[in-house]
């Protein structure tokens, strides 16, 4: 594919008109049109500027082979198509940068998750989603409070790319033949919301091959699929035995539990009060209408509002991503300027990470384990 066609594809993918691209890049709309139609060759500096505007790596315009564009699955996306496409473009760029770092360091790893033994979407029941959550919780060794370790286990042990930044929506997930499994969570969401979103998106990632065939490019989940993902997330984050043990202890002999106590248990499990109440419907076989009434009443209880904590705010970039970038820099595979760009820090600060100490990675200072 020629550069002109790539320029057109990149502009279409982010949903920009020629006029919008002109405004963002400072390159005239008529020049852009000529580049796209192959009537004039762009300068490299212009390609570089357009790569920035279209949120693409320079490789996209210059390499011959390109992987297929990943399908993005949204949870509570914005109404505006432009906003949607811009967010997708930023998320895709981060995932591709992450993948490039993995390639540089020879650490491209594909996770092996436990998979549901189902091949057709219509065979997926709520019962299967629940048992699948339990099986996965065991495989991931998430323990009694799964939300505490879920993100870290997915990132470090199963190489799922999890990014955070502010956008209109809750979450996006994607499975790409190029960079693997990835999730974007809204940095502005509350911690319990992000935990739940991650559980929900994990269901989509692991059942991707069941609910959407790669060739179809269909991104919209059905209502049933969303409900199954919610059921999965609920069971993944709230193990029945652990919840029952905490609730029974709080109730004591009284056989009653206050909103405040339930809210405290929800905080421990890293979920919302609503999520815990709904989980109790199944664990204690309570009528759903009763829980619905409690949820309505809980909304008016002032004492349940908690101030946000600084530790609740996640970093934009995954720790493994940053670690790969630092190692690639120190091993002379990633340039300083590129390192600054990838990690979103200034050139001046980036220099602090460049140590050129010979022997740092040599056997001389390695630890011998007999």
């Amino acid at each position: 594919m020629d550069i002109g066609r790539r320029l057109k594809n990149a502009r279409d993918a982010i949903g920009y008109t020629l006029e919008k691209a002109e405004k963002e890049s400072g390159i005239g709309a008529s020049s852009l049109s000529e580049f796209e139609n192959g009537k004039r060759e762009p300068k490299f500096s212009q390609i570089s500027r357009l790569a920035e505007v279209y949120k693409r790596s320079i490789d996209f315009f210059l390499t011959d082979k390109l992987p297929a564009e990943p399908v993005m699955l949204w949870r509570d996306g914005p109404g505006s198509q432009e906003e949607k496409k811009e967010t997708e473009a930023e998320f895709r760029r981060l995932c591709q940068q992450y993948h490039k770092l993995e390639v540089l360091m020879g650490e491209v790893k594909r996770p092996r998750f436990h998979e549901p033994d189902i091949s057709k979407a219509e065979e997926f029941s709520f019962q299967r989603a629940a048992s699948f959550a339990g099986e996965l919780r065991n495989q991931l060794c998430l323990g009694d409070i799964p939300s505490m370790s879920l993100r870290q286990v997915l990132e470090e042990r199963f190489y799922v790319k999890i990014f955070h930044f502010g956008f209109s929506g809750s979450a996006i997930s994607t499975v790409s033949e190029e960079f693997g499994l990835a999730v974007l969570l809204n940095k502005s969401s509350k911690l319990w919301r992000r935990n739940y979103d991650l559980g929900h998106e994990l269901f989509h990632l692991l059942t991707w091959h069941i609910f959407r065939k790669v060739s179809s490019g269909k991104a919209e989940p059905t209502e049933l699929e969303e409900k199954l993902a919610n059921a999965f997330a609920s069971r993944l984050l709230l193990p029945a035995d652990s919840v029952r043990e905490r609730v029974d202890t709080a109730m004591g002999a009284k056989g009653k539990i206050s909103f405040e106590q339930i809210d405290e248990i929800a905080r421990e499990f890293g979920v919302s009060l609503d999520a815990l109440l709904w989980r109790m419907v199944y664990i204690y076989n309570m009528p759903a209408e009763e829980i619905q009434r409690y949820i309505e009443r809980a909304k008016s209880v002032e004492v349940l509002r908690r101030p946000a904590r600084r530790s609740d705010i996640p970093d934009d970039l995954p720790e493994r991503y940053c670690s790969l970038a630092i190692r690639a820099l120190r091993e002379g595979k990633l340039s300083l300027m590129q390192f600054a760009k990838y990690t979103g820090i200034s050139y001046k600060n980036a220099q602090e990470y460049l140590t050129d100490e010979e022997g740092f990675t040599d056997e001389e200072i390695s630890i011998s384990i007999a």
Partner: protein
Amino acid sequence: MRRVSRMKKFQFLLLDAGPIIKLFELNKWDAFIKKCDVTIASTVAEQEVVFATKEDGKDYIDLLHYEKQNLIKVIDVDASVVKDFYDKTSLTGKYDIHEGEEETLAFLCSSSQSWRVCSADHVVFRVLGKLSRSDQAISLEELLESVGLGPPPAWKNLNPTDRDWKYTKGFRKRWTQKGREDFIQDQPLV
């Protein structure tokens, strides 16, 4: 009286962002461009140097101001030249360099002139070594010495852990050597 124009020391010299910024920091830029014919890739001049110096609320280095006065030359390379560089060198997946560095190296490899590249980036030197062009790499220390502008005395005793180590001959030698090793390792076994 006849005026004799003095030939500048380096006629084919490409500067990367790091040395440019350092020359400004050392207040040697103006003296330096009087002694050398400086050429800078457009992406370095218009994007990298601006990005790297725009922080801290300070005025950024505006190299186009020097270009307008014909004190330096800024080259704008065709995209196809960089594409050729991509296709011929197959560096993708082994090294990841910024666009300005790519434009500089692509121009160097496409030119019939014997250009020298002054950089303070280890990967740029490594790639030059890999492309068997180590002799076209030069450090800022060597450059200042050869044009009589004297590198800061402190650079004589720098260690690899020092921040300014990347401007020294030792740094340039270490990373071009590493690139040469990459070249040898990549040779097919006969």
